[in-house]
């Protein structure tokens, strides 16, 4: 196959997936649509974490807290009658600012220390959600969160709201695609691979570290803003530390540092429990076991396996070509 046909095949495959995501769910029931919407929302949050962790190499255990901040912002503002778009803007700015501040420890400490600072932040955020009754209604939670009207269409029903989630996922995907191909994305990777070399090449590592945190967190906020109207009721429980750990596992299982990693990771984390429903209470145990086995086999996740396979095939093809070319070269000599 020539490079051009390969490219067209890839584009055709991408379009087929998008078409399937749009048309197949049309006759899904309420629950199926809820699960798919949840997948879209979690993918957005995991994409943010993939930027921070996968591309910029900064470990964060606080992404769940940012989803929570986004969700509470949306819930509080929309129940006061303000539009969801406005809440989205506030969430993004708020999470960006808090993420920027959370990045400061990353300038001083790395790896496991950073993991623990962000873990502490996650716990603090949970305590605020639970205890500040005047703002978040505490353990009783906020109910009757309205779904938005977009361009004159009401999105109360599950299908239209699924399209809202899918559309948001599309916009975020394009933005992230653009970002990782921009000089910024390359600076993030440089930061991950070798911070000192990046610094000596004139990259302002300080600014980019903070940026990686801020942008990743802002995407967590976007996911939260969609989560609140999706469930229409929020309380502090879903935003505890385990959401942050789940999101981290999604990124790693899918393939950290791969563009499509979060899509796959979120699909496994959200859909696998549904497929394993027949095993009743055992599904989380099986999920944990599957994650451990996967990580032992391939620490770079599922896309890591694919990547390894493709590299191997390319190496084999190259050596086959060399074998063919060898006699010619020898006769020429």
């Amino acid at each position: 196959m020539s490079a051009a046909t390969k490219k067209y095949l890839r584009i055709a495959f991408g379009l087929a997936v998008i078409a399937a995501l749009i048309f197949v769910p049309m006759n899904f029931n309420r629950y199926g649509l809820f699960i798919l919407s949840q997948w879209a929302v979690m993918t957005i949050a995991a994409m943010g974490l993939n930027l921070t962790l996968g591309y910029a190499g900064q470990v964060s255990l606080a992404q769940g807290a940012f989803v929570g901040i986004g969700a509470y912002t949306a819930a509080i503002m929309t129940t006061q009658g303000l539009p969801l778009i406005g809440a989205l803007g506030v969430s993004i700015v708020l999470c960006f600012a808090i993420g920027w501040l959370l990045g400061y420890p990353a300038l001083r400490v790395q790896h496991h220390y950073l993991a623990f600072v962000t873990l502490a932040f996650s716990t603090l955020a949970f305590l605020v959600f639970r205890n500040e009754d005047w703002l978040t209604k505490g353990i009783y939670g906020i109910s009757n969160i309205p779904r938005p009207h977009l361009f004159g269409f009401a999105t109360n029903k599950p299908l239209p709201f699924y399209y809202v989630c899918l559309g948001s996922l599309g916009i975020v995907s394009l933005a992230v695609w653009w970002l990782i191909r921009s000089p910024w994305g390359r600076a993030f990777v440089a930061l991950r691979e070798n911070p000192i070399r990046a610094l000596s090449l004139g990259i302002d590592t300080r600014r980019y570290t903070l940026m990686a945190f801020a942008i990743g967190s802002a995407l967590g906020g976007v996911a939260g803003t969609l989560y609140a109207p999706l469930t229409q009721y929020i309380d502090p429980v879903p935003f505890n530390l385990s959401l942050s750990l789940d999101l981290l596992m999604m990124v790693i299982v899918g393939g950290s540092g791969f563009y499509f990693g979060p899509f796959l990771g979120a699909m496994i984390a959200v859909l696998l429990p549904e497929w394993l429903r027949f095993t009743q209470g055992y599904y989380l145990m099986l999920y944990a076991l599957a994650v451990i086995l996967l990580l032992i086999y391939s620490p770079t996740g599922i896309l890591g396996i694919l990547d390894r396979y493709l590299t191997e095939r390319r190496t084999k093809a190259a050596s086959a070509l060399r074998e063919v070319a060898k006699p010619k070269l020898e006769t020429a000599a």
Partner: protein
Amino acid sequence: MSNLLDLLVAGLATGAIYAIVAVGFTLLWQTSQTINFAQGEFVMLPAFLMLAAMHAGVPFWLAIIFGILLSMLLLGLGFKMLLVDPMLRHGVLPLAIATMALAIGIKEAVKQFFSAEASPFPSIVPAGDISVFGRLVSLQSLGVLALAISAVVALTLLLNRTSLGHQMQAAAQNPTVARIIGVPVERMILLTFLINAFLVALASLLITPIYLAKFSSGEVLGQAAFIAAIVGGFNQVRGAIAGGLLIGVVDNLAAAYVSTQYRAAVPMLLLIVIILFRPQGLLGRPEERTV
């Protein structure tokens, strides 16, 4: 004043348990770069193993021995052979994430095979109060404190006074040189995993009578142990001990004097402040940053 004394004794008792768990945590980090996110679940599990033995009709003392031995087999040997050894060459982060998955697995297994409800657990120290300098102090707190401190002292003596302990330290600090001078590094690493398993089983035995046996109780314990290890110093056993005692006392005092709602926030804030201003911990040595 009597209130403060009670709080201090109770704080030191829980703190001593945190210290035991934190010491195990730092041992694993030092010898094999394992950040064990399942450490809290490791403390939760042995109590259920002991309960299961007791349900089978085994007397309490035998159940304790059974629980400790089985935890050393599962959480020491099994953990090392089946999870850490295959993962270690992949680096710190994938291994840490695998232990997170392990934590979920253990929690769910206990919930599924045992119970989602909290179960009472017999105390090895008799209940009641004892008079100390004319004040009544809970016998259970004192007993826990005494047992935990003797465990910590025994471990410190093992590490610092015996040839075996010196070999373990050598294996942790510089495996290459240790191997050259004839230290069986692999066996020493296995030994630290067994010691960690023993310590978590002991902590389980001491803390479960206070907080009941519940599948989710590992989360809080694990976090307390991480914080204790970092506050005290990640690369020092005595740092972890000091950190554990400090966190136990701070936690209890915060509950009494700050607010019960935000008691969990105080150790977290302490953690953030320590990491920002003294990342090597109160008693730790600075680690050189790897390029």
